[in-house]
């Protein structure tokens, strides 16, 4: 038979036996103490790396979202500030204008009041001057009439005397 002719292709029972023992022993020992823990460690590490990468990506996305949000907020705040400033300016301008108007009208009112008062007093003073002048004239006339005018010289001296006695206030 061919198998017996060529010793190369004739398996020895001894080697088959020891090989089976060695292989099964190796499979058992390595499988239990090496391959399984190794594969687990490798896949755990890969899982860890994957998770970390996913986390990093998520954080990056979060950061970008936050930045966008910040920018939006900032823009909004800027806008708000501008409007606030504008409003404040407007309010202050309005207030100033109002105050000016009020002051002007008050001033005008005071001036008008003062004028009215001045006129009244002037009129009163004039009336009083008129009355006093009248009274004086009446008094002088009375004194002139009540005195018997003897001579012309005496008359004139007297008038002079009288007129000096009149003090026009």
């Amino acid at each position, binding site marked *: 038979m061919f198998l017996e002719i060529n010793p190369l292709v004739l398996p020895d029972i001894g080697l*088959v036996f020891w*090989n089976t023992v060695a292989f099964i022993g*190796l499979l058992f*020992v390595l499988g239990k103490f090496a391959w399984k823990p*190794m*594969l687990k460690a490798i896949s755990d590490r890969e899982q860890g790396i994957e998770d970390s990468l996913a986390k990093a990506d998520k954080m990056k996305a979060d950061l970008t979202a936050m930045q966008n949000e910040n920018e939006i907020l900032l823009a909004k705040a800027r806008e708000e500030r501008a409007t606030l400033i504008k409003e404040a300016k407007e309010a202050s301008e309005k207030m100033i204008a109002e105050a000016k108007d009020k002051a002007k009208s008050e001033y005008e009112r005071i001036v008008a009041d003062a004028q009215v008062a001045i006129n009244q007093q002037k009129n009163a003073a004039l009336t009083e001057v008129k009355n006093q002048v009248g009274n004086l004239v009446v008094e002088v006339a009375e004194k002139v009439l009540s005195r018997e005018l003897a001579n012309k010289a005496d008359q004139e001296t007297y008038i002079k005397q009288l007129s000096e006695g009149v003090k026009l206030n």
Partner: protein
Amino acid sequence: MVFSFVSIFLLNTITLFANEKAAAANEEGSFNVTQTILEHIKDDHSWHLWGHTSIALPVIFYTPAGLEVFSSAKLIDEHHEPVVYKGKFDYKLVEGKAKIVNAAGEVDEAASKKLWDFSITKNVASLFISVIILLLVVLTAAGAYKKTGISSAPKGVQSILEPIVIFVRDEIALPNIGAKRFAKHMPFLLTIFFIILTNNFLGLIPIFPGGANVSGNIAFTMTLAVCVFIVVNLSSNKNYWQHIFWMPGMHWSMKLFLAPIEFIGVFTKPISLMIRLFANITAGHILVLSLVCLVFIFKTVYAAAVAVPFVIFIFMIELLVAFLQAYIFTMLTAMYIGMASEEAHHDQAHH
């Protein structure tokens, strides 16, 4: 650097060889290349180191009279010629095989058939060495994960093994078996890959503890192939056997025609694994030995000028083959497991 080392080393081996064989040639008159090569490829009861130095290995016989254990040194004389050892029977090595001989020194075929040789031969010893190396290396690497934890990068042995383990997982197991079942078969595939790889490499080392031709021995490849056969059939499902015996989507006559072919395929697959590894590794060894034998054929050491560069070249190829054959064996094993455990799918496009 490596090249010069290898060439110096080879020259040394060849010179040793030359002295030894020159003496033999003088005695016998001619140099038998085939016999020399076969002696180096075949298994042996003792481990020849150099010249007249060899390591005696335990011989274990199971005979009708019971177990018999003795040293292999008792089966050969000082010139490495087989001699009769008288134990429970009279044993003698005939062309490397242990036989029972009668008182006249002639082989007793009937009695020899009842002799079971479980000796720790050169190949068995080499296999054990490879197992010890594997245990040391792989357990060290596995222990590193416990020590350094999973968060740190692999270091030392761990960083050599890890890429190979990931390669076996991602390139061999995952695509062929599928994500659902590959994890269960990973220890088997890894063990097969590493035992073949280690023995291929050990076989390439010309001196002890290498030099034995374990992965180029039919018994070794047969054992692995049988293991693959068992694992493949244990992981087979209904769908697989249906595709073998009653191929869906075919005319009934084709089904009848295909069934025996597919059934033979169940056996030829592991047999092809067995023969491929055996033939590749043995061929590599024969090639290297033939080139070295040029020195003895031409009976001049100057033939080494041609032989050594070629031998180095073949060694480089053999390094590739060592890895390649381990890969192919594991790859096909994964494929067969994948085919046997494939779930039924309803599209018939692939038929």
